């Protein structure tokens, strides 16, 4: 610190400015350090240290058929939710960039209204909609699908979670799409590209950062989601967060829960790394191609 202080005068003005303002990050960094990294470190430590030092807790999880099945079920559910929100969210966000100002505020409001509504209220609404004799059941039997009860099924949880997660997909998509210069599309068509081609080779690659942001957020949040599966699902279709809940609340097995949580974290990081690997070159090379076109 003293070295930095003595060297400070030699630093050019802009650098000094940067150095001075970087202190503003301190409170945020402290909060993250104390309320995120410290507990995480404790959980990690305990997962190795209890009941005896070693990797016993991890072997127990990885050797447990049921826990592995739950982990896979969680990954699959999160992937389905991510895909569904992307399929619904992309055209929606695209439409938001096309329409006029008034229509856009209306569309934004439609996304934000559920976002602002309490999660509990929305979950209970789905609870009522999905139950036997509920609106969905009646609507489905009216068109010939009898006795489809979504409450307590993976499908029911998925439908509700797609609705809960949709804003997290639409908002980053829209903000990245707003940044795309639409004259590029005109340029592409003036050079002979038909509209679908122009969209696929110019617009889609340019919107990839938004897609990546949305996909990552939705996927990560879905993996650790607790309330919706706990309320609308059943233990018969438990996701990882509920199993962790059982370990903590019913068995007081903090170490085992920590091991399962750590495995979930690692799996998440691996999936994200793969996602980034796959998507990043796709985005840049396609954008490069568009530039050449």
């Amino acid at each position, binding site marked *: 610190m003293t070295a930095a202080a003595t060297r400070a005068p030699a630093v050019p003005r802009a650098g000094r400015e940067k150095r001075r303002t970087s*202190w*503003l990050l301190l*409170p945020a960094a402290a909060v993250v350090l104390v309320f995120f990294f410290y507990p995480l470190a404790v959980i990690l430590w305990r997962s190795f240290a209890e009941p005896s030092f070693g990797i016993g807790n991890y072997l127990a999880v990885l050797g447990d058929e*049921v826990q592995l099945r*739950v982990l896979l079920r969680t990954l699959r559910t999160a992937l389905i939710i991510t895909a569904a929100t992307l399929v619904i969210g992309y055209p929606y966000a695209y439409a938001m960039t096309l329409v006029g100002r008034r229509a856009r505020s209306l569309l934004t409001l439609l996304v934000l209204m559920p976002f602002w509504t309490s999660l509990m209220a929305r979950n209970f609404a789905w609870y009522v909609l999905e139950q036997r004799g509920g609106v969905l059941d009646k609507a489905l039997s009216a068109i010939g699908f009898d006795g489809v009860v979504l*409450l307590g099924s993976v499908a029911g949880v998925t439908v509700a979670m797609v609705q809960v997660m949709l804003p997290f997909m639409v908002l980053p998509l829209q903000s990245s799409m707003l940044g795309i210069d639409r004259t590029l599309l005109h340029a592409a068509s003036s050079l002979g590209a038909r509209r679908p081609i122009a969209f696929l080779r110019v617009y889609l690659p340019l919107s990839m950062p938004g897609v990546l942001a949305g996909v990552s957020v939705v996927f990560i949040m879905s993996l650790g989601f607790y309330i919706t599966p706990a309320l609308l699902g*059943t233990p018969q279709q438990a996701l990882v967060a509920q199993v962790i809940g059982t370990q903590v609340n*019913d068995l007081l*097995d903090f170490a085992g829960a920590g091991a399962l949580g750590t495995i979930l974290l690692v799996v998440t990081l691996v999936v994200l790394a793969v996602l980034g690997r796959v998507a990043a070159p796709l985005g840049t090379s396609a954008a490069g191609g568009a530039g050449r076109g």
Partner: protein
Amino acid sequence: MRRRMPTLLSAALLLATAGCAISEGGPNSLVFVSYGQGAYQAGQRAAWLDPYEKQTGTTVTLDGPSNNAKLKAMVEAGKVTWDVVDTDASAAAAVCGSLLEPVDMGAQAAGFPEGSLTDCGVPDAFFGMMLMYDSKVYGQHPPTKLADFFDPKQFPGRRIIYGGDPSVGTIEAALLADGVPRDRLYPLDMRRALRMYDRIRPQLAISSTYGDQQQRMAGGQADLALIVSARAFSLLKAGATNWKVVPGIPVPVTWDVLVVPKGTARAEEAKKLIRFASQPAQAADFAARAGVGPANTAAPAARSEIARQLDIWGEGKEDLRVLSNVRYWAANRPALVKAWSDWTTG
């Protein structure tokens, strides 16, 4: 350096205030922890806490919901803000000595049913695992025995149980239904019990909370249910009148206990409150309000019609009560809960 101080100071202040946000309470106050809003906690407030405050001048604050994991975290962190906690008997017995203070009940110990008082847990409410049915569905041909719950041929229909904790009588009910004599229930034959549940797996819904179970029963989402009496009481009181209790069948009985977390600065005061609440009059008052069996057997019987249906201590019910073996549950809890949750999530 001086210029940097305000940021550092504000960060430090922020952390310091965050740490102090948990209220400690004064020497003349206690924190009582129960399960949140509802007849149960309201009954405790009216039957125990209000009279205790009036008698001793001690302020009793309610906190909740009761949570064993939170209790463990508090004791381990050395920052215990709970003084008296209402929790389930077998979980309490499992952590007696490590997380909980022993409570000596002295002469009052004789008032509790045999085997229900443990070193750290003082019974405060008894629950029966009741078999209930929707009388609109089974009007002409109602179920009459526990085995009917596990017989989808004779009694088609959707079943519902609470699956969060198998120690509330879920396993015992299945074994009793399968013909295991009541005095040979323990050690529990978990595989045999799960084979019983296998029979009704396609018809079975498992709720992860009691609230969900009540909600689904009231909403006509189930036709048959195994449900603890305190929840059945709330359900019937709320007007779900087409639900009926199957009378005259064995009832697995479990109970809640009051415990004192290790490390609270007001342990003696907390034990005083527990002894106060365990007196016959207080126990009976709470039992009548919450629809549970009174913990003190010297207490007079409950009166209301609904309460009589669900009463586990009433006359002629001696041969039907099957008290849980909490010591067995405490010793084998991890393996049993694991087997149960593997079956439910499998």
